[in-house]
């Protein structure tokens, strides 16, 4: 039965044969962000054979994003807190890769993970994966699309750690499709990865602690930031003060951001939102309005702020499709997103599948590192150091408090006009979705999508998912995308055939 990459028929075969990833790894890690990177090097340190697969070209994920070496950035660490933590692990990764302990596959996007027997014998009868007795299958197959030529790579491993992180939650508003309106995380990524500014006068808006970081980076890089417009009230953290006080690192981080903001004269407007962006070819100004506790814009509070860019984001959403494809159980996190349901050893509900970092709930880079290490201990069958467990509890408690404070209020849809495009890919305005819900019996996001095409385009609802769910009167369901990225037809046609 052909399962190693060199047996894959089709255009990928020759390329794959040159890769050293043949054979069965002890652990495959998907995602080389803080969680995946920490897990991979820790597990390798314990003697496991690890394959680390990441869609990005360089390790570090979303947080430790850094410029390509050819850009010649002198001090990438200038834009990062905790750069040392990353640098140490990156060194370890290089050492383990050199020794052959870790096979690192950058530029590889995993589109599905299946139990090996399922890849071989069809039809099969296991949902969720794993057998009826709750045992893990002997091996998993991770199918990836690799490199600009998009060739097929299959990785086999005894255990899988999903550290696929998160993506940014976008809540649309009139004018959000204008050039110059960018994701807050995207702006940060642009800055970290390519040292490019989205504009010269940038309003930062949305909700979540990321906004302060983004505003700080933009200001330090020379942009004017007329305002940080935050929909929540930071007083929302007050109940979590105990958690905050147990998190000295977080406090320090906040102080750094706060200090940077003060130095650059950035105004922080809490309980406010950008309810419209204006401009013809490009954004020229935004309307900012006060919100009530449910995020409903208050009449008569609107004012205009001129700008040439808006960096907007409403927190992050765990990226779960590989996990949900395997049948991993999810839970509703404090910030309203669906996150994986994990036990103390970072195990998902599917035996043989672990997870760490933001897939288990949005919490930031530090807990991601900690959880990656805990998972590595667990996979290797080592006892987990109590200090790690304590740190995780502390960091997670803080993240929950923060998540609760920034959870979008139901009233935000009040700033959507009927003609505001909600799904950019398929150009579906809010009015069509409202009609599907009110007149056609769409009681959930899936039906709203079927009746309007919202979420059927290129991004497969990553952008409009939260908005469509809100308009359908639902909380966003866990992502379900059997293919986690577009896969060329020839790759599917070239999969190893089932027996017979």
């Amino acid at each position: 039965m052909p399962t190693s990459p060199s047996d894959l028929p089709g255009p990928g075969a020759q390329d794959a044969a040159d890769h050293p990833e043949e054979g069965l790894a002890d652990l495959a890690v998907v995602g080389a962000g803080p969680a995946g990177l920490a897990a991979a090097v820790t597990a390798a340190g314990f003697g496991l054979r690890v394959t680390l697969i990441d869609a990005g070209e360089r390790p570090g994920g979303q947080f430790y994003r850094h410029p390509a070496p050819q850009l010649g950035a002198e001090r990438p660490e200038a834009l990062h807190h905790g750069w040392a933590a990353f640098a140490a692990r990156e060194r370890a990764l290089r050492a383990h890769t050199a020794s052959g302990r870790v096979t690192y596959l950058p530029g590889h996007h995993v589109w599905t993970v299946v139990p090996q027997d399922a890849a071989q014998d069809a039809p099969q009868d296991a949902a969720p994966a794993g057998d009826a007795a709750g045992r893990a299958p002997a091996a998993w197959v991770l199918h990836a699309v690799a490199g600009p030529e998009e060739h097929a790579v299959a990785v086999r491993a005894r255990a899988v750690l999903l550290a696929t992180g998160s993506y940014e939650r976008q809540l649309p508003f009139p004018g959000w499709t204008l050039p110059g309106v960018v994701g807050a995380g995207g702006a940060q990524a642009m800055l970290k990865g390519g040292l490019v500014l989205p504009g010269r006068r940038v309003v930062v808006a949305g909700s979540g602690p990321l906004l302060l970081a983004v505003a700080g980076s933009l200001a330090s890089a020379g942009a004017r930031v007329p305002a940080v417009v935050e929909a929540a009230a930071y007083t929302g953290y007050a109940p979590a003060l105990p958690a905050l006080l147990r998190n000295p690192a977080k406090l320090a981080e906040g102080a750094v951001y706060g200090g940077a903001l003060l130095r650059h004269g950035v105004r922080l407007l809490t309980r406010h939102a950008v309810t419209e962006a204006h401009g013809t070819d490009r954004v020229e100004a935004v309307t900012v309005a006060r919100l009530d506790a449910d995020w409903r814009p208050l009449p008569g509070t609107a004012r205009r702020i001129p700008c040439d860019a808006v960096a907007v984001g409403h927190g992050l959403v765990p990226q779960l499709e590989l996990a949900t494809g395997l049948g991993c159980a999810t839970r509703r996190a404090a910030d309203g997103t669906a996150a994986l349901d994990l036990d103390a050893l970072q195990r998902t509900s599917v035996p043989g599948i672990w997870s760490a970092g933001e897939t288990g709930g949005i919490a930031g880079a530090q807990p991601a590192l900690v959880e990656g290490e805990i998972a590595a201990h667990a996979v290797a069958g080592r006892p987990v150091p109590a200090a790690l467990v304590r740190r995780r509890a502390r960091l997670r408690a803080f993240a929950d408090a923060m998540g609760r404070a920034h959870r979008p209020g139901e009233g935000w849809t009040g700033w959507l006009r009927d003609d505001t495009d909600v799904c950019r890919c398929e150009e579906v305005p809010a009015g069509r979705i409202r009609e599907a819900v009110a007149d056609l019996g769409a009681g959930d996001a899936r039906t709203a999508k079927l009746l309007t095409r919202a979420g059927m385009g290129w991004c497969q609802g990553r952008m409009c998912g939260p908005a469509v769910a809100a308009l359908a009167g639902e909380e966003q369901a866990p992502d379900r995308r059997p293919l986690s990225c577009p896969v060329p037809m020839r790759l599917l046609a070239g999969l190893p055939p089932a027996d017979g």
Partner: protein
Amino acid sequence: MPKRHPLDVVIVGAGVVGAACAYYAARAGLRAAVVDRGPVAGGTTGAGEGNLLVSDKEAGPELDLALLSAGLWRDLAADLPEEIEYEPKGGLVIAPDETALKALRAFAEGQRAVGVEAVEAGPAELRELEPHLAPGRAGGFLYPQDAQVQPAQAAARLLAASGAELHLGEEVTAVLTAGGAVRGVRTTRRELAAPAVVNAAGTWGGRIAELAGTALPVLPRRGFVLVTEPLPRVVRHKVYAADYIADVASGSAALQSSAVVEGTPAGPVLIGATRERVGFDRSLSTEALRRLAGQAAALFPVLADARVLRAYHGFRPYLPDHLPAIGPDPRVPGLLHACGHEGAGIGLAPATGVLVAAALTGAEPPLPLHPFRPDRFPDPAAQPKETGR
């Protein structure tokens, strides 16, 4: 709460079949309520592709139903909003070699005898009809009566046009009877009284029959569909290879497939669907993807480099003899069935609705109901049982 008029019928299921029953019941002057535990089209209808095919059916009761439906869909296209995306684009069945072509000719001959239009196309004509088709095919048949709708829209618009009372998000938990005859249903929220109940619960129709104290052996048959990125117009008709016909009539539990390839107005090409009996297994079958992709690329080589954006699946409601159950159940007075349409429920919905409405009003049905009678299966105790959602 508006005052409720007494109901003539409660229809269980807001899929395309329940919607069509509601539509034609209303046209016959009946007051109907439609109950679904989910939203409109949340069941198999939302996973269907919307092919309205006569081409894949051999002469017999199902083809009669399909031909009746083909005409009804044309009328509906004029009456319902354009959002149902009715498109009479025609089907093109390809015979890879001479043997297959001979078989296809005989098949088409039988279909023509009962009113199907089928036009043979030689290799040159095939290229003209589908310029991107792989060369070297022996020939094929064009079926101008094959058409397409958007299934979820069709169900939603049929329901809206019916004016039926809608109860969504309410599961039917009991079929109420008095003296052996149906008198309504109980849902998770209320009781609905009516002298007739229509079981249009699709793949879950066996459960409703059970609630009414009888049996119907509806089983799930899984199908996967691939959706590509939006492409310029590559595929003009519904195109599939001749071996698909054999699959439809097969009772085998093993995976079978022969991709129906078609372009959509929005650009993506749809490729579906596989057929396998694996209960309600929701896990991804890479084998199903491999076969669909392979067959699509064999028919249209340009598709090999197209990207597949998503794959989805659904569970067709099937009965052992591959015919739906339509009409009154003699075992339970007042109970009617309209389920088990397998891979053709979108296409067969209007004819089913017309037959059910006729049965409800005592009108002469346009087709004999006998082949679809719900009590045609052997003792339910002997049937295998599958449950789940």
